[in-house]
């Protein structure tokens, strides 16, 4: 089973943050290659595993860097807003240890500079998340 484990001495303070890459989905890559067009390079981002997020979120503007077009529109509720319409994009997650998962992300502005994506329960639905607080580590497998 593909998996990775991350240890972070500041796990309690920062939360389960990891570095990952966001790439165009395999279907887009195949289409671009077939058409002789360049495939956008994956973007390296810091992501927070957020069990309070029902879906994954990508920082606003990054989908354009991947030259992606929306495949959906969905409304989101946050602590301060309700029913805000946002675009949804198909992406490929390249997680540590080269664990690769195809999925979708909602594009929205994320507060602060240190996190460019939230990894929510739609991604976690495909895997097993283990959080061992006393050892400052977490593990995700698919």
């Amino acid at each position: 089973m593909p998996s990775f484990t991350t240890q972070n001495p500041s796990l309690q303070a920062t939360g389960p943050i990891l570095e990952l890459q966001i790439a165009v989905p395999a279907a887009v890559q195949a289409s671009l290659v077939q058409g002789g067009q360049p495939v956008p390079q994956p973007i390296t981002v810091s992501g927070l595993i957020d069990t309070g997020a029902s879906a994954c979120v990508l920082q606003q503007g990054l989908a354009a860097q991947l030259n992606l077009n929306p495949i959906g529109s969905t409304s989101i509720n946050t602590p301060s807003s309700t029913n805000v319409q946002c675009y949804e994009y198909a992406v490929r997650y390249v997680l540590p240890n080269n664990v690769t998962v195809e999925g979708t992300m909602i594009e929205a502005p994320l507060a602060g500079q240190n996190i460019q994506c939230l990894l929510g329960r739609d991604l976690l639905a495909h895997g097993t998340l283990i959080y061992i607080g006393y050892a400052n580590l977490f593990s995700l497998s698919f």
Partner: protein
Amino acid sequence: MAELLKTELKTFEEHREELLGRASGDFALVHNSEVVGTYKSKEDAITEGYRRFGNVPFLVKQILAVDTSEDFTSNHIAI
């Protein structure tokens, strides 16, 4: 939000009742003003969208009587 998918969302609404009657819970693939088809999984609808149309905007939307929202309990989203 910008105007992308405006036509597709309008098309979906125009066909929602009919789609509910024959494919409730499935995922509709809509491009411009055409409902291309319905699929059991979101992934299948997305794959078919890229296969047919390439990397252009299209709509994949679950066929429900009332749309659901995604919920975020933290303050990470600046909206």
